[in-house]
């Protein structure tokens, strides 16, 4: 019998990417009973009733069909009005907005629309775990741009500049940031803008946490006229409106780039679920009060939890956005993974090791404070006992 040449069943792009670090930790966390979870990257609120009610009413009225590929015109109009009102951004509903299945799909579409094999994409780290993997799945090459606690995990122009090569096509970041909670100020944006302009970089700005800032209003990168023509803004309903399970997101940007994204979207997803889109319209039109109430709750939890972390000896910069604290575990002498695993097994508190979010995350752990104050209080007590126990006296 002649031997066939050995060939991987999986595509090289898929075989080469490692499984998510969070996934591994998820399996470990699931094996521990009665643990307090600070590992959850989603709101602990149920979607506000008015939004759920709108979806129920739509279902009763028989809205069970496909929609336009780019999304219901009514929803795109609502998105345009919302972005204009909240962040001073101007997008045409008819050709500058595409509604997607979560912001995750929007990121995937943007990368696929922009990249040719071998193109480099600057990924500002630590960041959401999917960016680098998504770049690789498109045949691109992710290049890490680390941020550090010394600069409050904000992107610096010098770090960006020294990683730009002739192959660099795009830059991707998320601010407010998951996992650090960092927020870029207007001055920060103005510092990096010339670098981006000079290199002609296309920017994918993941602004999924834009509503969740606590100390000052969020400034969208695309709100600078010089940035606008090169930026694809990605956002969604998951975090602000507590709608993670609805899988509803969107991307806005220059019409030619959005047209490219719609092309991929129509051959893959077709359209986002109509019920979610109907719910999204209600969220944008009437859900702002609900958002304000949730943001206030997160702000209080942030204040309480971050002070608690510092008090027990885990230094933590003050996160200004999203709902994560990113304390350093260096004083314990443990690596982030050792700390997270031992904290889980010995104190029954689940946090995520910072290094799974890429360069710059080492020595830190991500703690989500999107959980009740009572749970945070209990978690801090357990963490305090754990830290005292392991710290050399």
């Amino acid at each position, binding site marked *: 019998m002649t031997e066939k040449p050995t060939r991987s069943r999986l595509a090289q792009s898929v075989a080469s990417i490692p499984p998510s670090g969070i996934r591994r930790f*998820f399996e470990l966390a699931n094996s521990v009973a009665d643990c307090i979870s600070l590992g959850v990257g989603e709101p602990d609120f149920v979607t506000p009733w008015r939004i759920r009610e709108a979806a129920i009413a739509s279902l009763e009225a028989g809205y069970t069909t496909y929609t336009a590929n780019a999304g219901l015109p009514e929803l795109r109009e609502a998105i345009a009005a919302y972005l204009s009102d909240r962040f001073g951004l101007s997008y045409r509903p008819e050709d500058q907005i595409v509604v997607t299945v979560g912001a995750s799909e929007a990121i995937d579409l943007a990368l696929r629309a922009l990249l040719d094999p071998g193109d480099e994409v600057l990924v500002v780290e630590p960041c959401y775990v999917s960016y680098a993997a998504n770049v690789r799945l498109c045949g691109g090459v992710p290049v890490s741009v680390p941020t550090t606690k010394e600069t409050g995990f904000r992107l610096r122009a010098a770090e960006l500049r020294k990683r730009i090569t002739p192959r660099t096509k795009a830059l991707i970041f998320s601010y407010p940031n998951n996992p650090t909670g960092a927020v870029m100020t207007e001055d920060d944006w103005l510092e990096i803008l010339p670098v981006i302009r000079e290199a002609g970089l296309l920017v994918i700005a993941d602004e999924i946490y834009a509503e969740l800032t606590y100390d000052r209003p969020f400034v969208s990168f695309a709100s600078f006229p010089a940035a606008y023509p090169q930026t694809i803004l990605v956002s969604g309903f998951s975090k602000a409106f507590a709608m993670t399970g609805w899988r509803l997101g969107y991307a806005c940007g220059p019409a030619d780039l959005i047209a490219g994204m719609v092309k991929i979207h129509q051959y893959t997803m077709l359209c986002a679920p109509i019920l979610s889109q109907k719910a999204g319209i209600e969220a944008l039109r009437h859900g702002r009060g609900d958002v304000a109430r949730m943001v206030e709750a997160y702000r209080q939890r942030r204040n309480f939890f971050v002070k608690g972390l510092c008090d027990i000896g885990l230094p933590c910069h003050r996160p200004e956005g999203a709902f994560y604290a990113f304390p350093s575990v260096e004083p314990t002498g443990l690596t982030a993974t050792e700390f997270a695993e031992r904290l889980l097994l010995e104190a029954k508190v689940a946090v995520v090791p910072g290094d799974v979010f890429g360069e710059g995350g080492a020595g830190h752990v991500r703690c989500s404070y999107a959980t009740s104050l009572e749970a945070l209080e209990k978690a801090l007590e357990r963490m305090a006992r754990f830290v005292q126990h392991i710290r050399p006296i």
Partner: protein
Amino acid sequence: MSPEKTRELLRLLEANCRRSPEALAVLLDVSVDEVNEALRRLEEQGIIVKYSALVNWDKVQEDRVTAMIDVKVTPKRDVGFDEVAQRISQFPEVTALYLMSGAYDLSVVVEGRSMKEIAAFVSEKLATLDSVISTTTHFIMKKYKHDGVIFDERRDDRRMVVTP
């Protein structure tokens, strides 16, 4: 303390009045002294009237019946409904009293140990007042939501332990 922070302090206390001034200070990002001063002022001004607990009595083995009574009354010259309302509000059985627009004038919430006890209160004390023209009594059969709190709402965290 700023007016916005003061309002937030009130909201926090309304949600859980057992929080210590120290905890409130951290939540609001102000000093403990500021919280204590604000509390003193709010109590003095009668804005914080009382610190109370919301109890689901259905879960306690105790006989307790609540009724809402629609009352029509004859208003009096110069004092309108106030005189009779103040008189009714003095009864210890009355836990709440509102002046209403619409089909009747006063809504009286009454608590007692049995329907019989409430019936006695209505017929002997309330209906016999000079200004009272008529009463209609509605007994509360079950409380689903009170003071903004849904009773027996399932609060399980349905989320996964770790997510991106």
